């Protein structure tokens, strides 16, 4: 599942907020809209399609996000059709509501298609106007909608039981049963409670909407009038922020996806929960929305049953957070099930049109309002946790991380890598050390449970090169391997079997093992095909670029030098305090670790000295004992000599322990801190690119202004095109920057957690070794 590597999830609302503030953002909006289309596809597609097809669409949207928005258009156009065709057989699998579903899905996919299809056109406003025309109809029919909801609430329990029966999976049933229990216990109250709750949230923003909503719930008849009056105002606002939430949500959660287990029961909950959690905000437009999404979800549930085997991880993970919000969702699905189709389809179209109209109007005031509405509603502590986490990217990132962490705990030891049996291959200067890399795993992505390959040192370096090239620029902290040591290796190559070269090999072996373990523990890196290849494949193409004296090595050196120079020239005025603090922290920690390392090294040296001195003292004590003429004293002295001999051994062991578990640990962290700094640098580079693009845009604008003054229409057109191009670039780079920032932040947090755990473990190990040696001292001391 290499999807995650491509899907670096930027907390979307962050950029969204900024987008909103930016008045000239039609393009960005449009793309968001498309994403919305994507989302709908995304929720229906994965469950229905086979594994391969699952991967494909899942990967595409995230790819698309990175591309300029204009590219987005092509994809959604194709997808709705395919999903539509797939929807049908899937929904046919359902016994009771199958007819409804077929229709519904048809409608929905049709509407999404139409909504999306319109966007790529150059003049969207015309089309939207068309849709707006139908909107008025929809408003009229809203009365019917609300009526039906109440009726449906009564029917609900039946329908939900129908849902529970249809799939054969036990888990689903139990989950659904839970839901059914809850919903049947308070069917109407659920709906009612949910909606007023969301009403109150919105009160600060738009008081107008509150009234119609309350009315709607209590007595449907006056509602349509109110609705009809102000459909474009508050409801559109609501839809607006809701939509953005939805857009942000799937992408973020996708990243967490690969971590989690494929419980289908979760899947249906989530599918319901996520859209509804967000949807519950805006009651009027929501209902249609709910229907659209939940119908899909409902269709997905039965479809998922038969497909369960083939689609393991994907659907399950999407939104674990929303388990709480599922209760209203189920009730809603049931209302949907009993509903007639025509109304909804129109309303579906309605939603899209409203949203897009709003965008095409492009009035900064309403947008700002959207922004405002998004925030208070997001911070509301109800079932909108998804929205809340979106609005606060930092907490979202942390939460997500924690989630990941939890998931990690489960599969912490899913991959165990050990590097063993260093073996010298070849002679002379062409000799090299080969290590046996054994992997033990329970991950299904590997073919076997255990496998062993032989790798040489440069292979390890090659792996690092590949990984850092791929993931480094995205802000990932790629664990660094141990450095090349020409001196140490030469010693080994010359072939002296002395202790220092054995020491060197052992040190390197340990470092390599820890390096690999770090790589496989990284949730994203383990997904990389190169890692898998490294662990599994029998013969790996030799990594050439890692040789220190090769041309590639020389190039690398030059690159490094230029990087260093540019690093000095880039003056980044850090906007984020967190990063500033972290960078400082990392740098001071790096310094301290270096110092500590030097100290521990000197401790090791002194320890070795002590061992040496103890040995010589033992020898001379033995001599003294032999010279002693008093037999008792002579015996005591020779005993002392023996003890000192043992002590010498202990000190020596201790020195080795100091080296391997303490000094090496610190050395690891020095390297890792270097990697962390590297990711900070990458972030800075992206920032720099963004700034450059902005400067460029500024320049273009100036030229445009000049041209305007000079009144040269032919060039003006060109200038405008250029501005558009650069605007797109700026947005893109800015988004890149946000994404990298987010990744770096996440990675740093992850790194720190790992560090804490790992450090503690190692220290305990080290102290235990110290303890052991001290325990051995005491009995042997008794002369």
């Amino acid at each position, binding site marked *: 599942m290499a999807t995650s590597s491509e899907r670096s999830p930027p907390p979307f609302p962050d950029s969204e907020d900024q987008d909103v503030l930016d008045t000239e953002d039609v393009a960005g909006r449009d793309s968001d809209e498309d994403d919305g289309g994507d989302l709908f596809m995304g929720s229906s597609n994965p469950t229905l399609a086979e594994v391969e097809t699952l991967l494909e669409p899942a990967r595409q949207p995230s790819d698309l996000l990175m591309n300029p928005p204009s590219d987005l258009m092509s994809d959604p156009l194709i997808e709705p059709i395919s999903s539509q065709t797939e929807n049908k057989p899937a929904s046919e699998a359902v016994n009771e509501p199958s007819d409804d579903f077929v229709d519904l899905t048809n409608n929905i996919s049709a509407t999404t298609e139409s909504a999306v299809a319109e966007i790529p056109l150059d003049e969207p406003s015309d089309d939207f106007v068309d849709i707006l025309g139908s909107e008025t109809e929809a408003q009229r029919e809203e009365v019917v909608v609300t009526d039906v909801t109440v009726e449906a609430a009564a029917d609900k329990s039946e329908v939900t039981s129908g849902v529970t029966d249809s799939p054969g999976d036990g888990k689903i049933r139990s989950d659904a049963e839970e839901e059914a229990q809850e919903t049947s216990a308070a069917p109407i109250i659920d709906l009612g409670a949910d909606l007023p709750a969301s009403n109150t949230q919105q009160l600060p923003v738009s008081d107008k909407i509150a009234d119609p909503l309350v009315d709607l719930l209590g007595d449907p008849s006056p509602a349509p009038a109110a609705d009809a009056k102000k459909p474009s105002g508050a409801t559109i606002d609501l839809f607006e922020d809701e939509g953005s939430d939805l857009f942000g949500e799937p992408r973020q959660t996708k990243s967490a996806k690969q971590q989690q287990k494929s419980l289908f029961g979760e899947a249906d909950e989530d599918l319901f929960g996520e859209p509804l959690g967000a949807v519950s905000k805006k009651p009027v437009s929501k209902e249609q929305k709910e229907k659209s999404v939940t119908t899909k979800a409902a269709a997905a549930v039965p479809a998922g049953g038969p497909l369960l085997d083939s689609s393991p991880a994907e659907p399950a993970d999407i939104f674990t957070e929303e388990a709480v919000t599922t209760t209203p969702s189920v009730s809603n699905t049931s209302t949907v099930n009993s509903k007639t189709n025509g109304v909804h389809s129109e309303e579906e179209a309605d939603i899209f049109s409203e949203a897009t109209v709003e965008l095409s109007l492009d009035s900064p005031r309403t947008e700002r309002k959207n922004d405002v509405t998004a925030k208070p509603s997001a911070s509301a502590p109800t079932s909108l946790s998804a929205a809340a986490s979106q609005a606060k990217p930092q907490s979202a990132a942390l939460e997500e991380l924690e989630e990941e962490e939890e998931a990690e705990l489960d599969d912490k030891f899913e991959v165990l890598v050990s590097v063993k049996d260093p073996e010298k291959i070849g002679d002379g200067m062409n000799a090299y050390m080969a290590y046996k890399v054994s992997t033990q795993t329970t991950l299904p992505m590997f073919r076997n449970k255990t496998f062993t390959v032989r790798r040489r040192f440069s292979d390890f370096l090659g792996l690092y090169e590949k990984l850092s090239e791929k993931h480094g620029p995205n802000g990932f902290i790629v664990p660094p391997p141990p450095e090349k040591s020409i001196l140490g290796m030469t010693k080994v190559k010359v072939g002296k079997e002395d202790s220092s070269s054995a020491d060197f090999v052992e040190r390197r072996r340990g470092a390599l093992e820890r390096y690999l373990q770090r790589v496989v523990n990284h949730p994203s890196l383990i997904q990389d095909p190169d890692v898998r290849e490294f662990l599994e494949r029998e013969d790996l193409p030799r990594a050439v670029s890692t040789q220190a004296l090769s041309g590639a090595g020389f190039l690398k050196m030059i690159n490094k030098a230029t990087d260093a120079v540019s690093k000095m020239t880039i003056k980044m005025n850090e906007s984020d305090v967190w990063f500033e603090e972290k960078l400082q922290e990392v740098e001071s*920690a790096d310094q301290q670790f270096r110092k500590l390392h030097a100290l521990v090294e000197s401790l090791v040296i002194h*320890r070795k000295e002590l061992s040496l001195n103890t040995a*010589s*003292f033992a020898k001379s004590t033995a001599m003294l004992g032999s010279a002693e003429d008093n037999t*008792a004293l002579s015996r005591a002295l020779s005993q002392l000599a023996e003890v000192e001999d043992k002590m010498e051994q202990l000190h020596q062991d201790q020195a080795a322990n100091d080296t391997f578990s303490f000094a090496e640990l610190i050395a690891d962290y020095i390297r890792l801190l270097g990697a962390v700094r590297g990711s900070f640098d990458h972030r800075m580079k992206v920032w720099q690119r963004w700034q450059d693009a902005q400067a460029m845009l500024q320049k273009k604008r100036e030229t445009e202004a000049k041209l305007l003054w000079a009144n040269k229409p032919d060039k003006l057109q060109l200038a405008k095109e250029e501005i558009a191009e650069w605007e797109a670039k700026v947005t893109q780079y800015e988004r890149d920057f946000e994404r990298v920032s987010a990744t770096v932040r996440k990675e740093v947090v992850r790194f720190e957690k790992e560090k804490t755990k790992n450090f503690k473990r190692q220290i305990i190990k080290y102290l235990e070794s110290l*303890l052991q040696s001290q325990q051995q001292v*005491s009995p042997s001391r008794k002369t």
Partner: protein
Amino acid sequence: MTSIDESNKDKLRSVSVDLNNDASLLIDIPDALCERDKVKFTVHTKTTLSSFQKPEFSVPRQHEDFIWLHDTLVETEDYAGLIIPPAPPKPDFEGPREKMHKLGEGEATMTKEEYTKMKQELEAEYLAVFKKTVQVHEVFLQRLSSHPILSKDRNFQIFLEYDQDLSVRRKNAKEMFGGFFKNMVKSADEVLISGIKEVDDFFEQEKTFLLDYYSKIKDSTAKAEKMTRSHKNIADDYIHISATLNSLSADDSTGNKKNLEKLSDLFEKLRKVEGRVASDQELKLTELLRYYMRDIQAAKDLLYRRARALADYENSNKALDKARLKSKDIPQAEEHQQHCLKKFDKLSESGKKELTSFKGRRVVAFRKNLIEMAELEIKHAKNNVTLLQGCIELLKTN
């Protein structure tokens, strides 16, 4: 200016064994002052002997006074058959002082806390050296006082009683050179007379033993010193590690902070234990070996004096033979020969006694010190174990 008090001294008095068992003459150094290079010892005497004017008195003495006392004893003919207790070594504060200087230079590279700890450590070391110096001077006097013959020495009594400054003249350059020359002659002489056939098996054995033992113990002393220094180095490393960990934990804002703090604490405690191991080893083992190295040197000097007397006797025999042959100055030669023989016999007799008692003393001292050292080491090891266990538990429960 440093001074030590009485309470610290009991545990310091470890090198010699129960020297003050004779209640008639009790000597100790309750106080000492350090003024630049000079150390002023206050020698306190308590006695029941009638040869002293008062039963209790204190006098200020300097290191040079001790040396003078030692030299006069060595030069006294009558004491040739005795092992003259080795003179205390010159107070040497250069080591700690130099280190202090170095520390001052390296102050910039260290954190304040680290610096203070290092300084404390050095001060402790300095104090230890100081105490040791006082102790060896005290032991010297105590050995004299406990010796049946030497305690009656007039110079010794003057040294103890005369309440003014002895104002012993410093050795001038010529005398220094003379002393050096004398040493040269002595060692050359030792080589020369080593060819003389030993008449007594006891001395023959004793001589080979002492020579052998001396070289061994010298070696051991050097090695033990090195070992002790290594321990000290490790303790110093612990200081730095602890300080660095501390500053790391100060910078750290994650969950690691606590771990680092704990670790830093642990190293600080380990440092103390390690430092104590070093100082105990120094005191119990190295000092012992050092002292007996000097003592053996004194015993060797006795053997040399006896061998010299033997050589003199043989020479006088030859001279007598020659005189008889020439029948000239016979009574003179005879007298000389008799004198030499008497001297040699006397030397042999007292030497035998001295060496035997020396041997007993040595064995007792060794045993006592070794046992003490072993106990201390076990104690420290146990301390370490509890410290480590505690820390591991703390870390694990976190």
